Each structure stands twice: as C-alpha cells, then as structure tokens.
C-alpha cells in the first residue's frame, strides 16, 4: 500500500512540476529528495517506484495532449525519428526518462544505507 501510495503521490507531484518548473530535468533531483524522505524497503522498490512515478505522468501528459491534437504533431515527429506512430515514440521517451528518475531514486536509497 505504502509503495503504491508513494508512486501515486510522486506521479501527481511530477505532473505538477512539469508545468510549474521550466527545467526539463527537475524530475531527477525531485526523485532523489523524494526518496530520501520516503525510503522504500529495498533498492529495487526505490528504483521501480522512481521509474513509475515519472514514466506514468510523462506518458499521460503526452497522451492527453496528443488526443486533443488528433495525433497531427506526434505523427510528424515520429516520422522524423523513422517511427510509424507517435505512441512508440511516447513510450520510448517516457521509458528513458523513467529510467533516469529510477536511478536517481536508487541513488537516494544507497545514500540512506551508506
């Protein structure tokens, strides 16, 4: 429960940060601090929670905008990266960014255990 709760709160905060802060990388220090304050029971849990709490809102923000745009722009940008549809691009980019967030969360775990 606490694990899920941590992810949901973190995801909501990340979503808000997208619009509040102008720095694209804000999620990385945020994940680090967030998991210093809310440590999980293992490094793996820190990592996966850190991943999901960024992956999910990042992807969601894409999907909401993309639906409102009728996929006009995502199709063009996907073509630029030789992909057939925007959704692949969205998942890949959200995944890579999630990975950074997860690593940052993981670093917080190791710092507390040091």
């Amino acid at each position, binding site marked *: 429960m606490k694990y899920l709760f941590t992810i949901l709160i973190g995801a909501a905060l990340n979503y808000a940060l*997208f619009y509040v802060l102008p720095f694209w*990388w804000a999620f990385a220090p945020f994940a680090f601090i967030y998991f210093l304050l809310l440590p999980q029971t293992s490094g793996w849990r820190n990592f996966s929670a850190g991943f999901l709490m960024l992956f999910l809102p990042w992807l969601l*923000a894409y999907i909401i*905008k993309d639906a409102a745009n009728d996929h006009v722009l995502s199709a063009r940008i996907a*073509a630029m990266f030789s992909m057939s549809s925007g959704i692949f691009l969205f998942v890949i980019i959200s995944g890579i960014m999630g990975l950074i967030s997860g690593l940052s969360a993981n670093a917080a775990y*190791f*710092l507390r255990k040091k």
Partner: protein
Amino acid sequence: MRSVKLYICLLFVIAFLVLFNARLGTVPPIGKFMHPAHGFMANAETKKDVSDAMITFPDPEIHGSVYFDDRLVPHVFADNDISLYYIQGYLHAKFRLWQMEIQTRAAAGRLSEVLGDGLLEYDRLQRRLGMGYAAEHALAAIEEDEHMYACLQAYTAGVNAYIQPDGEHIRSYDQLPIEYKLLDYQPELWTPIKSMYLLKYMASDLSGFDNDLEYTNILQKIGSGDFNLLFPNRPDGIVPIIPDSAQIHYAVPDKPDYQASTSSPYSFDDLQKGAQSTRYNEIGSNNWAVAGSKTKTGNPILCNDPHLQLNLPSLWFEMQLHTPDMNCYGVSLPGAPAIVIGFNDSISWGMTNAGWDVRDWYNITFTDPTEKQYITDSGNQNISFRIETISVRGGADYIDTVRYTSFGPLVYNGFRQKNISAAKADAKENLAMRWAAHDPSMEFKTLYLLNHSRNYADYRASISYFECPAQNFIFACTNGDIAITEHGKFPVKYPGEGRFVLDGKADSNIWKTFIPESDLPATLNPAQGFIVSANQHPTGPDYPYYYTGFDYEFYRNRVLNTAIQHMQQITVEDMQHLQQNTFNLMASEVLPVMLDHLNGEANQKYADALRTWNFEDNAEIPEPVYFQIWWDDLYALLWDEFSDSSVALIPPNYYNTIHILHTESNDFSYYDVQETKEKETLTDIVTRTYNTMVASVDSITKASGDPKWYTWKNTSIMHLAQLPAFSRTQIKVGGYRNIVNAVSENHGPSWRMVVEMSTPINAYGIYPGGQSGNPGSAYYDNFIDDWAEGKYHRLAFYSSAEEAERSAMFQISCNTP
C-alpha cells in the same frame, strides 16, 4: 560497497542529464525537446488555440478586433492604419514567426549564425550580391515618407509584441514555434530593415537573373552568326502582353544621353570557368482580365496565379484588412505589411513577373594590385569597401570585404564560387554588378496605395513607386475598366546593351536614363476585351525602346490568348477552369517532329501511345512521362555543345530549339553528338533518345507498374528547413512548366485567385498550404488537397465588423475590454 553503487547511480543520472541537455549534431537537446509540457508537444494545437481571446499589447493605443473564419483567415477591423499594421505584424508573427525570420536571414546572408558553417558560402554570396546594400537603400527611402515609415514601425512593433509578450522578455521556450526547438535557437526582435530584406528576397527571386556571362562565353565560342540563330532576342510568332489592338502612341523616346556605344561586347581573355548552366522556365505566373463585354454578368473578371517555389509554411498568408477608409482582402507576405495581391471594394489587382533584364555586369580594371581604384574613360575612380561580418554558429566570425564601384558590388573579385546558380563564374576577372534592386525605392508604398485605390488613376499612381522586381500589374475595376502595366525601373539602352558583359572602362555603358512612366508598356480597355500576361514579351516590334529578357515564356500566354479569344458569356467557373488548363502546347509543337524523325525500326509501343495522346498533362496518365523523358534527353543531347561542366554556358530555350527542329535540315551541325566520331543527324539523336526513354520507362514499369504523370513528376511542397516529416510529396496534380497549370516538381501556382468585379465583390482563391505555420496544427497544410483537385474557396469579404463577427469561428480583441 554501497557508496560505490551510490556514485555509479549518480554518475549515470548526471551523464544522462548532460547528454540530453546538449545539442548533438543536428539532434536538438532531447530533454528539452521531448518534455511533455514545454517541448514539442507544447506545439500540438488543440481547440483552445481556436477560441476567443483577448490580447493586451504593450502599446495601449492599439485598438482593433480580429475575426477568424473557419479557414483561419483573420479579418482585421482596426481604428486606423497604425493599429491595423500593428495587428497585422502581430498576426504574421503569431502564425508564421519562424518563416519570417528564416527568410529575412536568408536574404541578409545570416543563416550561418543559426545553422552553422554549412551555409557560409550561401551567406557570402548574399553579401556579395549586395543584399544588405539594397535593403539599407530601401529603408532610407521609406524613412523619407513619414506615414509609410510610421506604418512600417507599427508593423514592427506588432511583430515584437508577439516575440516579447510582456515588452521585455522573449517568449519562453514552450511558446516558441517548433522549428526554434528543433534547431535550438531563439528568435530575435524584428526591425524595419528586416521587412526590407524580405522585399529584397522577393526581388532576388524574381529579378536576380541574367544570362550575360553565359552569352558572353557563347558568343566567343560560336560567333555572332550562330549566336543570332540560336539566341534571337525577339523570335517570330510571339504574342506580346500589350495587344496590337491597343493603339499605343509612345512619346518619341527622349534620350538626351542616348548614344550608340563605341565599345563592342566585352570579350574574356579565356572562357569563364563555371559550374552548372541555368535552367529555364522555373518561375513564372499568369494573370488576365476580361472586360464585362465578354462576361455573363457584364462585370469584369480578374485572375492571377503567381508561380513560385512551393514551400511549407506557405509564402502567402490570407487576410482581410479593414479601416474606416479601406477594406481590402488578399494574400500578404509574412514579414511585410499590407496585402500584396488581392482586391478591395472597388478594384482588384494581380501580378506576374516581368522578365525584363535589369541586371548587368561590368568588367573592372584596377589601377594597381592594391585594388583601391579602377580605370574609366573619365579618369580613375575610387573603390569603396564594405566589411561584411558573418557570424557562424559554433565557430569564429567570417569577415569578408566586398568592393563597391559606382556600378555596384564586385560580386566576382578573385573569388571562386562553386555551384551557385546566381553566380556561375569561377572568375579571374573582376566583375561588378549593376542591378535595379540596389536602387532606393518604395515598393511597400505601392502596396499600401493599391490597397486603398478606387479607380484606374489611383492604380497608376500606386504602381509608380514599384521599381524592382518589375511586375505586370493587372487591374480590374467595378466601373468596368480593365488594364495592365508592366512597371519597373528600366534603363534606356542601345540595341544589344546588357546581353553580354560590358566594359567597365567605357562611360557610354553606364545606365543613365530610364524609360519614362508614360512610355512603359501599358494598356487600358483594349478593343479585344481582354488582357493576358504570362511572362511573355511585353510589346510588339513597334515599341521604341530596346530591351532584353532573362527568361521570356512562349507557351502559357498563347494558350490563354487563344482560349479567351474564343470565349463569350464568361463565368467565374470558366476562369477557374482555365487556371486548371493542362494543355501542353510545347509538346504539341515538338512531338510531331520527334515522331516524324523516329527510325521505323525502333520499338513502337510508346510512340504509338504518344501518337494518340491529346497533349493533356493529366495527373494519372503515362503519356506525359514518355514525352518528358524523351524530350529532356533529346534537348540535352542536342545541345551537348552547351553543357561543358567547366564553363558557364546555357542552351537555347525551348521555343528557339523547337523552331530550329522545324526549320533546319536533318544534318544541321548542332545535331552532331560531340562525344562520338560519327556525324549524327536529327533522326539519329531522336531515335537514340527514344530508345533511352523506352529503357527507362520499362524499368519504371518493372519496378512499380505503369508510370503515372504525377508519381513521376513528384510534385513536392517541402518545409523551408527541408524536413521531410513536415513536407508533402507525391501530390496528385497534373500540369507542368510551360503549361497554364504550371505545377512542376517544386514550383507552381502559389495562389490562385479569381475575382468578379460585382457589387459586392465575388471572389475565389486558394493556395497550397494552410494559414498556420505550425506543423502541429490542423491548419498547417489543410488547403493542399483541395488545391491539387482544382477546388477554390469562396473568399469571405465582410463589409462590417458585425458581419464578420456573425460568421466567425472565434475572435481576438486587441486592447479592448
């Protein structure tokens, strides 16, 4: 152990952040670009972007309302000129900011600053062509006119109100057009000279041509007998713009300084080295007007379709501009105020390019190697220097010194230019350029006054300010008048002057006087009841002034003249239909000769198809492909004498080539192929190129089935940064160059307009693009399919703000509560 893991994790995090924060080659900074709120998805337009809004400008005295119709065409209702052009500037920026900026950068030779050193040679050429010198002169001229300058400043402030919404800071990253994010740079503030650069960009596109260096080389290579046969200045059979029925009485040319030159055309010590030859017939346009006597309703109808390079975002932006003393509709050029081609409630006007050669070259002899003075008949003249500093992204500034003579810049000054069509010579000589576009002039004032014109007299007064690029201004009025004027700054020349490089030492070669306003080619209400211009010669042989063109067209105008001559009871639909005409007159005049000379032993399958072809270049048939491949090969093989890759040369144009095919004997010396020992005849080269065509069509058929004209032609509308993902290719459309519907690979009718001068005005138009410059908008390319199918939009020309408001999709109020 755990701290090692900590450091590894942190290292990875930081490495990723650094990597994604950087621009890698042409890949934009991925982190910023992909951010879901600020990155490219911020450019994904939604319904919110087409809903009512209120803007507060930094300049409180600006008032007006903008009503957008369902095609996103803004109808601007403003209190006065200042508010009007301010709002126009704001809207241009709102929909087309990146395009405006990149085009003015291209004109100014400032692309390297944002795109890197790959564009350095391009930038250097722009500087050497004197684009800055020209723009500065144009700005100085406009500064003299208080009201015009105030309008231009208002326009500038409007653009900047978009770039800096708060009056202090450039728009934030998330609010920038997507191209800035992709190319990773920021817009800079607009200034009045940028609008001048845009006008010079058009001047360069439309008048920055001549064949002087090529002709000089050719004259030297083949002698004057052959030259006059292959390159006649005024061939037989042309139908000029000003019809014979027009009964013009020219003032006897008053040429106080006119004198026959004593100097013969300049001859190079050895032939100019150069790269590719120029290609003919890329740009052109049609316009025509029919008088009420020929129309069903009795109202004149005016038509115009300027053929330009087709790009996304489109060159044009459609608008209605309304103030208490003007109501005007048409297309504007993002980056410059006013409507360029369009109509108001009294008149309509359009333009085609005048192919009049207004660019000459002078060979300069320096007094000594310091190159500070040059020699003329009237004594040594000083050179002036213009230091051009080109900023290069990711590199050091490049500093170039351009020498200026009294003619203009020394474009070639021991300077080796590669593969640039406007500058073909790899010259040892020093060549100065005299170009009408360098002179101070106020083309913007013409547009401003045309927008306000009520009748023929107003129209003539308006265009009197338009000097370069010279245009055929077609005109129609609700009172029934139709007219055309070829207007530009045309030097009075002695016969032959300016076809070849001139001797810079001879004072008699200097442009001294210009054709007076009263003697410019023009006609008002000619007896035939219609006027056609399609880049052909403007006048018949009785015109008293000598002129030469860089690229006259011989086919579209004859198709149009013949068609309109036979039409009565003309309707708007008839005129729309005529703009879509795909009859290939050129093919009809040359193909019979080709088929007659084809050796009977050749495989006849494609020849048989061509024998029954009706010469229509329709999108989905194969015959135009057979003809075009065959003709292109034949033309190249015939004129192999003019395709020396080390020398700047140009082959005879299509019209003269076809005349020769009809009149010369089968063993005319130029039919011989240079690279073979045998002496070829027309039959030989026709058959040889036919066989090449059969082979290439067979291989196309084998790979992808029977060819279709549109797939072979591959009409493409490329994004200005050449990004395929933002472009449209394989557009299903017929026509070609030299055809009324002049859609070639990447040029074509950039705006089709048909205006009936009824009350109220009944107007139709379409351009191949969309109102929004944003690839993330549904309005980015939404006109293209309709344009390709030959459809038109009924243009909503509102008489009042209330009427506009009733049918608006949404509206923007400017500084009004």
